[in-house]
């Protein structure tokens, strides 16, 4: 199947929109577009960051998910309390696979679930007393925790608890940071606002903690990795490249990160941002307050890695620049071998993506390195600036879809017939049952890392393993297969 032409793509969007009632059609039409590289500003062709329509199937998360699940959760030496009823924390526990080193339950707490388990009486009489008691209990049971964050679930905002007052009081009492985060799920249109709220909480309660304290020995090559959540070890396979280049990674935000790393970030020379969407806010703040420049980079696939390493090195002196070239040269044999092995097996395959954060645009380069083509991409919770950055990465006449509904996605897939879909767990089984190879691109389908040169080898293997898996040919029941496919000889009649 060849890719769609611009007219075909337009017609497809129209056809899919046809089933909606007038008002919904008008609204959804703004979120679907055919990519045109000549467009400079995405808002001319696609609208994003709007409330999802009631009645359509969306896969978005809530602000609490953005704050607790994404930004705060991976900070491993803090206890993050899911403040409110038990479900929000219990059902999202450890689902993101943010790897870390440490002894869980002793000095790290990443995969544990702490909750205030609200009952009816807490809703009626308020939960501040319970929170106070809970924090004291945490201190008794887990004295090595470096701090506590209070992640509000919906009811907290509804009943008007004063978590700020409790946090201040307990912080003084325990002599540890206790950070109230107002990330109630009902705020905003998606998890995106949760990222913003979490960033603001870090700005207000963490970033300034070491102001005026010069005891930390800074160096000329100090950098921080921002917006890498170490999914399947992503941050580790990124970090080694930076270190081999001669840079010192002072902090990892927030995968495998610690509170003190975050506090020290205000001392670095350059902030490196991987996930722009979830952590641009804090980078902007540090630029304004401390004069730390920030830059976006992309560690998916050798082409983008080399580009990014050179761009990062350009911020520093010639030694670092020479080192960057050495790093690229060092891994060349390795990634050439990966491409030589997998490219012939994957060449020309078409991919459709629908993920969050940075991946809908960042992984395109990695697929292209393997000779594959991304024919459609979209974000769950992007803003205009994300699409601005996407338009240039995508080919002309490819599909862009924002906050796509379950129905639209299925219809697009039926028409475009991609060889691979990369999306989340909620889409996975639908498409697998439709017989289309699928990779879960939020947590790398229990694999990873995918960042860096080491990650690329795993990425290529996983894509091959999925697309060329023999199981896709076995989806039709034997008696439904046409006779020429059916090689089994019929039993001769007597």
């Amino acid at each position, binding site marked *: 199947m060849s890719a769609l032409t611009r007219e075909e793509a337009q017609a497809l969007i129209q056809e899919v929109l046809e089933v909606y009632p007038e008002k919904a059609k008008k609204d959804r039409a703004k979120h679907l577009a055919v990519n045109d590289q000549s467009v400079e*500003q995405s808002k001319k062709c696609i609208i994003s*960051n709007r409330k999802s329509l009631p009645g359509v199937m969306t896969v978005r998360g809530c602000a609490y998910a953005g704050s607790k699940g994404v930004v705060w959760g991976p900070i491993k030496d803090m206890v993050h309390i899911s403040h409110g009823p038990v479900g929000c924390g219990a059902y999202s526990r450890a689902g993101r696979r943010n790897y870390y080193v440490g002894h869980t339950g002793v000095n790290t707490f990443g995969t544990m679930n702490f909750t205030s388990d609200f009952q009816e009486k807490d809703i009626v009489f308020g939960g501040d007393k319970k929170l106070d008691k809970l924090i004291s209990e945490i201190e008794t049971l887990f004295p090595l925790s470096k701090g506590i964050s209070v992640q509000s679930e919906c009811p907290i905002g509804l009943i008007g608890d004063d978590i700020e007052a409790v946090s201040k009081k307990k912080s003084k009492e325990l002599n540890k940071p206790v950070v109230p985060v107002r990330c109630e799920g009902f705020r905003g249109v998606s998890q995106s606002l949760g990222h*913003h709220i979490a960033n603001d909480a870090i700005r207000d309660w963490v970033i300034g903690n070491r102001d005026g304290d010069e005891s930390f020995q800074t160096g000329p090559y100090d950098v921080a990795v921002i917006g890498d959540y170490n999914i399947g070890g992503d941050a580790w396979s990124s970090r080694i490249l930076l270190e081999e280049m001669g840079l010192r990674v002072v902090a990892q935000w927030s995968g495998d990160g610690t509170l003190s790393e975050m506090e020290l970030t205000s001392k670095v020379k350059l902030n490196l941002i991987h996930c722009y969407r979830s952590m641009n*806010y804090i980078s*902007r703040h540090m*630029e*304004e307050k401390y004069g730390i420049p920030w830059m976006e980079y992309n560690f998916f696939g050798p082409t983008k890695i080399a580009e990014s390493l050179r761009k990062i090195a350009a911020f520093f002196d010639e030694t670092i620049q020479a080192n960057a070239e050495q790093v690229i040269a060092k891994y060349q044999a390795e990634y050439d071998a990966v491409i030589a092995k997998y490219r012939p097996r994957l060449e020309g395959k078409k991919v459709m993506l629908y993920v969050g954060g940075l991946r809908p645009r960042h992984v395109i380069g990695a697929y292209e390195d393997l000779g594959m083509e991304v024919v459609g991409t979209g974000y769950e919770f992007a*803003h*205009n*600036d994300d699409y601005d950055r996407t338009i240039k990465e995508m080919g002309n006449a490819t599909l862009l879809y924002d906050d796509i509904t379950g129905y639209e996605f299925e219809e697009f897939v039926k028409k475009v017939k991609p060889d691979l879909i990369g999306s989340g767990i909620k889409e996975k089984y639908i498409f697998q049952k439709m017989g289309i190879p699928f990779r879960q691109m939020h947590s790398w389908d229990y694999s990873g890392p995918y960042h860096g040169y080491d990650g690329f080898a795993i990425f290529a293997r996983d894509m091959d393993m999925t697309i060329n898996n023999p199981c896709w040919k076995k989806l039709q029941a034997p008696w439904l297969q046409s006779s020429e496919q059916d090689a089994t000889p019929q039993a001769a009649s007597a």
Partner: protein
Amino acid sequence: MPNVMIRKNDAGDLLFYVAKKDMEETISSVELDDSEQWGGAVELTDGSRWYIDPISPPPTFPTTLRFKRGDD
């Protein structure tokens, strides 16, 4: 009167960023921009106009300033 963070991009253009709205636009023209002062009417590439009383001496970017909508 939104709070606006003004910063420079790699190409040296000034960017106009409203955190509350998550809106970022390039500034196309600034009425007063010399060694003495900075400000006045500011126009963005999307055509919207904003106003700020001239600041002197000119601020160093990035910085957060309060702007008024130009059309009121």
